[in-house]
């Protein structure tokens, strides 16, 4: 058993180091992707900032919006997954072939890339956040180790879920040439339901309760509100339950898509 753990540890160390070194060549590109990733929450914050003025919007004052969107930038960067774009390319251009020939499932390479990328970009956001919080008290978070630990667990589950969503959607390229368009559709819906545009409490009640039935809030809104302290008591428990349930559903979806897709791919590539 320990032998197998050590074996996987070595494999992942090699994969992550490789991904890290590849990213190193594209440092400036990664900074640009990061910049692009934070403009949407920054613009949303600017608009809510203007709307809140000196008062409150559904209990949110300016400082609350600032904390919410700073936390959103960080959690989004830690959970974002580009895999559907990669997989779409791999499948359509045949780059999946040599990956299938390796004695390692291609998903491991993708996971390692995610870890390397997220460590780099989230690290950059954390540094910027620390510097900003020195001059702008509004975005400071309470130092509560318990809450930080819970947030870390929720971010991990959210990252896993978003990875499986992205990977599974990318696998649709076995059947259609518009897999990335489906992913963009998903991103459009998630703008509202996962809390990217506004805290879910600010959406119309009907939309917010519809969102609660989907996986979207567990991708982002739940870990974000855990980090800012907006989620309390039973909301924390039901949040984790929701994350686990939906993660299970997406893992199952991935299994079905992978096995069926591969059979089909084999038939085409013959």
């Amino acid at each position, binding site marked *: 058993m320990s032998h197998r753990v050590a074996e996987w540890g070595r494999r992942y160390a090699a994969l992550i180091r490789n991904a890290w070194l590849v990213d190193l060549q594209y440092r400036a*590109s990664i900074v640009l992707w990061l910049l692009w990733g934070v*403009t949407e929450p920054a613009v949303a914050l*600017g*608009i*809510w900032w203007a*709307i809140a003025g000196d008062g409150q*919007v559904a209990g949110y004052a300016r400082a609350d919006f600032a904390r919410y969107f700073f936390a959103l930038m960080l959690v989004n960067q830690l959970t974002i997954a580009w895999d559907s774009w990669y997989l779409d390319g791999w499948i359509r251009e045949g780059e999946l072939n040599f990956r299938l020939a390796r004695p390692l499932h291609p998903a491991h390479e993708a996971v390692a890339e995610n870890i390397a990328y997220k460590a780099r970009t989230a690290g950059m956001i954390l540094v910027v956040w620390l510097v900003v919080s020195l001059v702008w008290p509004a975005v400071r978070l309470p130092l509560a180790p318990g809450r930080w630990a819970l947030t870390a667990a929720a971010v991990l589950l959210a990252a896993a879920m978003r990875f499986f969503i992205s990977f599974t959607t990318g696998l649709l390229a076995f059947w259609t040439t518009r897999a990335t368009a489906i992913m963009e559709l998903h991103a459009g819906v998630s703008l509202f339901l996962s809390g990217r545009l506004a805290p879910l409490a*600010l959406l119309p009640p009907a939309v917010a309760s519809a969102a609660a039935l989907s996986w979207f809030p567990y991708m982002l809104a739940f870990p974000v509100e855990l980090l800012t302290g907006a989620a309390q008591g039973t909301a924390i428990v039901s949040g984790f339950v929701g994350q686990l349930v939906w993660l299970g559903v997406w893992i199952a979806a991935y299994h079905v898509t992978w096995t069926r897709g591969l059979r089909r791919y084999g038939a085409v590539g013959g």
Partner: protein
Amino acid sequence: MTFRIPHSAFRILLALWRLNLAEELQYRANFVASVLGTLFWIVTALLTLAVFFSHTTRLGGWDYWEVVVLLGVFNALTGVIEAVLRPGIGRLAGEVRSGGLDLVLAKPVDPQAFVSFRRLNIWRLTDVVLGLALAGYALHRLGRVPSFAQLAAFGLALAAAAVVVYALWVVLMSLAFWFVSVENLSVLFDAVYEGARYPVSAYPEALRFLFVYLIPIAWTTTIPASALTGRLGPEIGLVAALVAGVAFALARLVWRAALKRYTGASG
């Protein structure tokens, strides 16, 4: 600072676009996909506004339908960007990196003009039509009938906006000559343009200054929309044209300086 436009330039341009058109017409399904994509984007943007306006009656002093006019302008300009700029000058970074630009420079045409206007992604021009239709509908809901002067000012400001957007692309993509390894430079434009979705008056003072004078995105959506709704007098059209002229001249200077750094990579 000369910008000679010989007669042959238009012939070359027309020939290129005709070739493009023939190519695109083979993929008519893309037309449907493009229209659906645009409609989805417009619905998303309107719902976004609905969320904001469920908690306020004004955004930076603008009411709902005024912001929708601006959204229409934003969408029309997005059409210009996706139809001409991204498939043309948007590919510059990769070509500087690979040395593919050599082939462009070897042609007896103005490289900036050729790089900028070589491709026409015809289907995305539907965004221009849908965007203007949205602006027109919003104007109707505002209950305003624009005067001739307002329409003329809007036309001028919209053309100026396209020039400003173009100048921004030229300046940002020229950075490729300094930062050769950055392949996704066009993302920088997307990040900046994101700020143009809303009237600049909604932003804090410092950002407003930035958007009017330094990164002039205020001139891309806020100004044309203001000219159409009558928020600003018709003379703003002339100011916009002036700004566009300055932006274009500056972009040309940056392009010239940048091109001097190019040493070729395919050699």
